[in-house]
Every structure is written in C-alpha cells, then in structure tokens.
C-alpha cells in the first residue's frame, strides 16, 4: 500500500511533445519510492479558488528524483497545467489508486489508444520489456515510448500500419503474453476486449478513467459500472481493473 501525501512539487521541465500534448517533469523523491505503475496523482491546476477540483493524471514514468506526466489539454484545468513553468511549485496528491497487477517474470502485451498509452512507460520500465501496440488517429497522437518492441497503427496512415489497433492483435501475441494491459478511450478498449477471444481474457487488465472529485475514495463521484452489478470507484478500487470486472455496455452508455 502506497503512502498517500500532499506534496509541493517543483516543476523541473515542461514542454509540448505533440500538438496539445504536454509533458511536465516534477521533482518529488517521495513519489519515486512510493508510486507503482498505473497509479495516478491529483494535480492542483491553480493556486486560485477555481477550478474547485484537481485534475487526475496517470504517472507516465518515474525519473531519478521525481516523476513525469503526459497529458492532453482538454479544458480549463489542463490548460492551466500547460502554463506551469520550470521553477514553479505545484500541489500534488499521490500516489493514488491501484495500478497494474505486476506478477514476477511476466511477459507483457500493452495495447494503447492515443493518450491512453501515457503511463505505459512506467510499466515498461518496471517489468523490463514488453510488446507494445499503439493505435491513434494520426502520427500527431502517437506519444513517444521507449520500448524495444512497439508497433503503431494510425487511422489516417500517417505513421505505421493504416487502420485500428485491433488489427495488430494476433493470436500469437495473445498466446505468448502472460499479462495484457489495455488503456485508451472506452470505445477503443471495448473493441480490444471484443477482439480478444474469451480464452485469453483472464490475462487482461484495463486502466479506466472517469470524471473525478476527490481521488481518494470518499466522494463516490467516479463510479465505473462493473459486471457483478453496481459500481466500483475508479479512484480507489481502480483505475486498473481486471477486464472481466467491467460492464462494458453500461460503461459505454455513461458516455464519459
């Protein structure tokens, strides 16, 4: 269990890596010793009164003395985060949630859609090596990953294969993997889930996201519909769940 604390983190570096996609490197030694792959942090986007909630972002990777986030600018909160500059101090709560269930000596297959692949670097760095499949609308949405094996498909064919990430999933890849990690938009994750034959589905873990209030389990705002009925909390029970836990139909209906 990670120790959750609210840290004042120094911005060491900030840059735009793709159009509308920002990378920020923060200094925070405590996060290095505490965070696990797949966990997230809650960033305070402003020191003013608004916005009234933080922004939950998955840890993309750890650095020697801190961690790195990679995120899309989608609204006011992330826009403010994009304006964070080197030398600033930002209040960050974390590490939060349950990350990827990592078994020793496991062979990993990672399937990411667009910015959903943010966070895979931490997993790759932790498990040593993994086969990675990335799908995106175009090359402008393919985030940089350091991996020995990475295959890309884009819908417009601007890089890699032309088509969807589901076309990259082969029976051989599913067979040789012990663990399969999926992260991306709900429709993409559902398509991947439906592409995987049921005999391999026990290996699948998915990283979810939701509109979030607190980030630490008290407000019940970030519910994910689960197959056993009812809901689980994205922030505390997740964000990573076994794929079989998810009620895909109800989750898609939520239109998140």
């Amino acid at each position, binding site marked *: 269990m990670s120790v959750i604390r609210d840290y004042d983190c120094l911005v060491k570096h900030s840059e735009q890596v793709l159009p509308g996609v920002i990378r920020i490197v923060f200094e925070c030694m405590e996060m290095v010793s505490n965070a696990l792959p797949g966990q997230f942090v809650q960033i305070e986007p402003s020191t003013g009164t608004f916005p009234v909630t933080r922004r939950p972002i998955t840890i993309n990777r750890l650095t020697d003395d801190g961690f790195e986030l990679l995120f899309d600018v989608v609204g006011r909160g992330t826009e403010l985060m994009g304006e964070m500059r080197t030398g600033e101090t930002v209040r960050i709560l974390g590490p939060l949630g349950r990350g990827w269930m990592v078994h020793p000596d496991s062979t990993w297959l990672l399937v990411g859609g667009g910015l959903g692949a943010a966070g895979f670097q931490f997993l790759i760095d932790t498990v040593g090596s993994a086969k990675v499949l990335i799908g995106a609308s175009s090359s402008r949405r393919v985030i940089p990953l350091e991996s020995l094996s990475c295959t890309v498909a884009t819908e417009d064919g601007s890089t890699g294969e032309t088509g969807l990430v589901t076309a990259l999933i082969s029976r051989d890849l599913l067979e040789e993997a012990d663990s399969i990690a999926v992260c991306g938009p709900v429709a993409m994750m559902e398509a991947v889930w439906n592409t995987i034959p049921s005999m391999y589905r026990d290996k699948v873990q998915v990283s979810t996201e939701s509109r979030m209030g607190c980030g630490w389990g008290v*407000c019940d705002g970030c519910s994910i519909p689960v197959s056993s009925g009812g809901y689980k909390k994205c922030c505390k029970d997740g964000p990573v769940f076994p794929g079989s836990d998810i009620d895909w139909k109800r989750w898609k209906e939520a239109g998140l």
Partner: protein
Amino acid sequence: MSYPPSIPRKFWGVDFNSPVMLASGTAGFGEELLDLQCLSGVGAVVSKAVTFKSREGNPPPRLLETPYGLLNSIGLANPGVHHVLEHILPVAADLPCPLLINVAGESVEEFASVVSVLEESRVHLGYEINVSCPNVADGGAAFGVDPEVVLRVAQGVSRVTSRPFSVKLTPNGGDMVQSARAAVEGGASAVTVCNTFLGMQIDWETGRSILKRKVAGYTSPALLPLVVARVWQVSNAVSVPVISSGGVSKGEDVLQLLAAGARMVQVGTRLMRRPFAAGELMAEMKKLTGE
C-alpha cells in the same frame, strides 16, 4: 454574541477542538481520512448519507465541474444501514473526533428506522437528518420544503434516540425559517443550513443535460453570500445552534459564517481541492483572530 467571533471549541456540550466539520458526502465515514492522516483541525466528521437499504447510486457521470463550481449527482450511494453498523462504524471508531451520521430516507418512517438500527453503535455522537432528499413515498418533493413533514420526521427521530441530531435543510423551495422552526419543535438539537442548490448544465447544441438525472446539486465558493444570508435568517429565528454548510474556501469565510450566527461550519467541496482543508482553515482563522 460579540464581534469578531471567537473560535468555538464546544458543541452540544462536547469538546469539538475546532468549529470545522467535514460535510456529508465529502468525507465518506472518515475511514479514508485516517489513511490520509488529514484529520488535523477537524471538529467533527459528518458521514455520507445512510439509507435503510443499500443504494448503488446514480448512473455515471456523477460529477460535472463548471467554471465556478461543481454539480454532483451521486444518488445517495451507500451500502445500507446494516452494513454500515457492522462493517464501517467499527473502523470509524478510530476517528479522533466526533462522528455524526447523515441519515436519508424515502419516507417519513425510514429516517427513524435507520436511526433505530444505528442506536446499537456507540461510535457516533449523533445524527444529521437529510430532509433534502425526495419524499418518494409521497409525491417526490423534498421533505424539507414542507414544515409539517419536517416536524413529523424530527418527531420520529426524537422517539428512537436520545442522541443529539441536526436537521439539514434544503434551500430548494419552501421557507427555510419555517422548516427550521418545525425541526426544533420536533426535537432537533441543531439545524444545518443548508444543502446543495439545484443546478443543471445543458449542452446547447443538443439540448441535453450532461448529467443523466438532469438536475443535480450545485456547490461553489461563490455560494457563500447565499449561505451567509440563510444562516443569519435561521439563527435569528430558532433557539438551537445553526451548523452552516456551503461556500467555504478560506478561514475568513468560516469567521464570517460564525459572525452570521453559525456555531459550527461545514466544509465540503473545498476538500476535493484540499483534503487537509480543515487544518488550513483553522490555521488561517488563528492568524486572523490572533488566537
């Protein structure tokens, strides 16, 4: 009352250490707060709403942030009173501050039924009765808009407990002062002013509400003057203490609410930004008052 107000430390004859209470729905049952060690400066925790049967809550999305506030549509998600009694209250026993259990119901009788079950526990100090939820058994309007109904709810609770309870009033319809008087007549030891304001966000291109239940509860630091006015009106009309709820983001906000007549001040949405808000508010207040 003298001005500026001093920081109260006692409530219902009990030592509360701080006038800052964590509002219902923003602190669970306090057990996560123990993990996070963010209970410094917390006078009391008000639990999330407990109903007789478990409720899975509303379909997502349940939250929608607006530029100046937060809409929530949680739907009183909770595991039901028996689960709370057997599995959650024993953990909440470790809280270093008093716990009030927020109780909701779909009929006048359900409030007393929930309280009766909870009476088995010695963990909590008292209750907060949420009369802002819809009276499903009788048309669906909030219990709190009709003083006659508020009186019956409070009387029902008084009959089954000797612990103190506050009635949490709704700002959405009805006359809050009349409802507050009815709560006191029914035996309430305090009134909480007030619950969330009805709010809605519509996608103008499609005409659809973003949240599935259409209207939701709106909270915002910008609501502070609305809460101050209601606290002032109600505290001038009733003999029991008023607990304010809503609009707090700074220590000076707490002091203003105390000056308006509140005896305890709840903080809620601010915890989403600052889990350690209670301690921060106390520090700011001490600095401002020199205490």
